[in-house]
């Protein structure tokens, strides 16, 4: 496929690997955090750690929307599906994520709840149009990439007068989470030398949204595409910034990311959503201004206001290190549950379920390589 194959070219990869090996200073450590789960998977799927010099390693960030969703929010969705006569639809990632007591949306479906897997918010609208007497709730989750499609759905529902459609909104924002990670570096026992910035989130919010990384934290950031050559090229650009400075926001993914982002989508998001004063993230705690709720003019489409569901604080699984893995403080193989009781077939933590989770990446691509990215034996 065009724009995929050429960014997986072997010869170019060898060239970039050699360039990175030549660029790193031998007495220096390079700890690069990829914020996005999509990058974590690209790194492992294509074996990039094996091509890197030993003093360069990748730390995995919290950019996996399913993983950072606190259990209480998932409990809320499950209770909504079980206790109200609604059709609850959501993206596939979320159906197997364990909530409190090992409950999942799949188990709720087995218990009689009407839970549907959809590909697009357009599918949710189609369900609502088909059966006007049935309440259809879209369980919305995701970073800025996935938010505009939810906004389009809400806007469309209002335009069409679809009174039986609503959204349970769990959309979260990238910059506040990145800021929280960087601010917690010292206390959290973590040191980061540079950031690989998200690919597709950045097509929406633009590269300028990350200016605080060099300005407030003095760290380099390079927006990187999701293909293996993009990751390697961005790594080389980061090494160069770390060695020589000045630290700045660089954009490797110029074919899709501009400085200011997608104005049309951002305007729509601003119209339909409002910032929550605070939102709880798994692993990062309660962060101010870090998530979106549905704005007042669209309150009729807000499932949180339409359906009363009370939930107790979620109970995390004992021994599960998801919270530390999400902050980059631990690698999946540090977790006692990893690969023993927690596997993709029987996931105990969200990081093992999601196709963007770091634990799933280690399991799928790295569990026999022994070293992982850390030099430890699994």
């Amino acid at each position: 496929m065009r724009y995929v194959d050429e960014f997986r070219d072997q010869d170019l990869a060898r060239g970039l690997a050699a360039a990175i090996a030549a660029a790193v200073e031998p007495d220096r450590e390079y700890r690069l955090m990829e914020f996005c789960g999509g990058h974590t998977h690209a790194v492992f799927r294509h074996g990039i750690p094996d091509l890197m010099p030993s003093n360069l390693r990748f730390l995995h960030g919290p950019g996996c929307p399913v993983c950072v969703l606190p259990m209480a929010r998932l409990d809320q969705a499950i209770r909504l599906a079980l206790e109200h006569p609604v059709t609850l639809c959501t993206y596939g990632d979320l159906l197997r994520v364990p909530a409190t007591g090992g409950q999942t949306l799949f188990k709720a479906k087995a218990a009689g709840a009407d839970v549907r897997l959809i590909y697009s918010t357009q599918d949710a609208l189609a369900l609502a149009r088909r059966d006007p007497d049935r309440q259809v709730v879209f369980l919305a989750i995701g970073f800025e990439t996935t938010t505009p499609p939810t906004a389009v759905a809400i806007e469309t529902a209002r335009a069409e007068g679809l009174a039986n459609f609503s959204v349970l909104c769990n959309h979260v924002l990238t910059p506040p989470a990145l800021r929280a990670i960087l601010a917690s570096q010292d206390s959290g026992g973590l040191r980061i030398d540079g950031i690989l910035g998200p690919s597709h989130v950045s097509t929406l919010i633009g590269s300028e949204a990350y200016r605080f990384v060099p300005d407030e934290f003095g760290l380099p950031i390079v927006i990187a595409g999701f293909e293996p050559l993009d990751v390697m090229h961005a790594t080389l650009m980061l090494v160069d910034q770390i060695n020589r400075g000045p630290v700045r926001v660089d954009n490797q993914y110029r074919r899709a990311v501009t400085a200011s982002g997608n104005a049309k989508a951002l305007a729509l998001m601003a119209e339909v959503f409002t910032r929550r004063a605070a939102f709880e993230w798994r692993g990062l705690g309660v962060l101010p201004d870090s998530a979106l709720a549905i704005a007042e003019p669209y309150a009729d489409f807000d499932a949180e206001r339409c359906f009363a569901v009370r939930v107790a604080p979620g109970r995390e699984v004992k021994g599960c290190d998801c919270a530390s893995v999400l902050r980059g403080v631990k690698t999946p193989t540090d977790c006692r549950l990893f690969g023993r009781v927690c596997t993709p077939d029987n996931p105990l933590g969200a990081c093992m379920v999601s196709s963007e989770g770091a634990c799933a990446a280690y399991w799928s691509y790295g569990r026999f390589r022994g070293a992982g990215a850390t030099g430890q034996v699994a």
Partner: protein
Amino acid sequence: MIKLLTRKPKPMCLAIPAQIIAIEADGRSATVALGGIHKAVSLALIEDAVVGDYVLLHVGYALSKISAEEAERTLALMVEAGLFETAPAAPDAR
């Protein structure tokens, strides 16, 4: 079956490049080609799309256009960076 479907879901922030092959009369939706598959997608989030454009496709929506010139430029930069160290990779570099 359900398990098979959800075993490897598409990562949530991962969009894939697809080429627009037809645009509906209302301009709000299009058909894209994606490795031999044709799919209807919404154009509600982008502007000025024309047939032939490559777009990033995510959960049924075109999120942004892909710039052919910038893609070429990035590949050229990668070739240049790699040449710095390795001679053998050069001859058929694109």
